[in-house]
């Protein structure tokens, strides 16, 4: 990280793990548009990254998968400008490709003998899942409350669970490894990804950070996000 003397510059971006593919693509775009600039991507859990940013970790941009985490960094006063939402994500039900339990709707999760998994309620995806299951009146408890959405997806891909509640982006990324069962009311429950430049950057680097944030919120980026299954930012 930091500025090179010979015009080589590095822009360090701290991003939620679920942004791995999209941000990698955007970083390439950004490097093309800014010759001599290298984007270094640091992925991790939103909470960890936000805490590290608050602790003064090297980095110019922070993108988290929820607003709560970003709040940690905001409270620490390390954000250069107010965080801005850039994409949203909605839940969907996925099953193994052969759908052994014959899941066709959210209600089928309540059937006896169905092992379904969700995120732990403390994770953003878990909170959303809980809300969704409550509103659908599902009583049967999940077989497991996974720590994050990737773990839920992995269960389904491996055939360890008959169904799982994941983000649409994960369903899209998994491709043929899972079958998706659409949920009509899913759009009611979304999570919002937010991004902000970090303070402590001076001069050209600060400009670059702002430009990267702009790129993330641009129409160009929207196409990348949509392809990956991200949705619109929910209007409050």
């Amino acid at each position, binding site marked *: 990280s930091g500025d090179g003397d010979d015009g080589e510059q590095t822009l360090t971006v701290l991003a939620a793990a679920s942004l791995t593919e999209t941000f990698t693509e955007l970083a390439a775009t950004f490097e093309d548009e800014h010759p001599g600039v290298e984007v270094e991507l640091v992925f991790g859990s939103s909470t960890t990254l936000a805490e590290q940013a608050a602790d003064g970790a090297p980095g110019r941009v922070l993108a988290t998968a929820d607003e709560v985490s970003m709040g940690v960094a905001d409270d620490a006063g390390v954000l250069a400008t107010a965080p801005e939402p850039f994409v949203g994500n909605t839940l969907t039900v996925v099953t193994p490709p052969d759908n052994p339990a014959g899941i066709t709707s959210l209600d089928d999760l309540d059937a006896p003998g169905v092992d379904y998994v969700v995120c732990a309620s403390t994770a953003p995806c878990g909170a959303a899942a809980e809300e969704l299951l409550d509103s659908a009146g599902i009583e049967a408890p999940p077989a497991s409350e996974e720590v*994050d959405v990737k773990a839920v997806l992995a269960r389904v891909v491996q055939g360890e669970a008959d169904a799982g509640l994941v983000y649409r982006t994960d369903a899209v990324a998994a491709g043929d490894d899972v079958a998706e069962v659409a949920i009509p009311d899913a759009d009611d429950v979304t999570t919002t990804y937010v991004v902000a430049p970090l303070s402590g950057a001076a001069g050209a680097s600060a400009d670059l950070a702002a430009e990267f944030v702009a790129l993330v919120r641009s129409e160009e980026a929207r196409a990348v996000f949509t392809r990956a299954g991200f949705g619109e930012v929910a209007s409050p």
Partner: protein
Amino acid sequence: MTGPRLGRAPAVLLVPAVVGVALLVVPLVTLVVATPWRTLPEHLGSQVVREALVITALSSLLTVVACVLLGTPLAWLLARVDFRGRRVVRALVLVPLVLPPVVAGVALVTALGRSGLIGQHLPFTLPYTTSGVVVAHTFVSLPFYVLAVEGALRTHGASYDVVAATLGADRWTAFRRVTLPLALPGVLAGSALAWARSLGEFGATITFAGNYPGTTQTMPSLIYVALNSDPTVARTLSLILLALSVGVLVLLRERWAVGR
């Protein structure tokens, strides 16, 4: 009685020892200092925490039992029996040490999961059950145990095994009555390692056995999940885990120290 006075511990040993202790203890102290203790009774009272504690205690205990039962013979085999391919077996046994826990969980799923290569033929399912937790913990802890005990067995050497053999003891008798008692400090050290490793394990557990309160949610899993939402709660829970385990260790080691 104190032993013979062999001289003062020299600075060249004391200083690094103290640095080592400091490195290990200081972060713990700061963690304790930086954590709000007021909420502790409230956490201890919560059902989720109590269930997680029970599962943690149970599974770590069973893990130690499994390690002792499986690992002691294995360590003996590696330390005492000459067989072809011993070197390779020894290296393979250590591999789970190197595996990041989550990958270890993935490996367990591919083998013993519901649709795993072996798991699909099993008459019972391991994932989502407390047995699965024990299997995951054993997979992760066994190499630690084996390595520590093998080191102790090698330190002692086989000379008393030979004496036992001249007295007519077959290998099992010699193992039971000579090898094992003589390597006891190593076995205890290995058990402590396995137990502690099991207490702190969550990566493989969550990936293989899942995370459901009351069946598979251990303290570390609970802590990890809590970290995602409220780091302070996570720290407080960690301290509960720590306090309990330190208590157990102090009690146990007291016993051992007397034993020797």
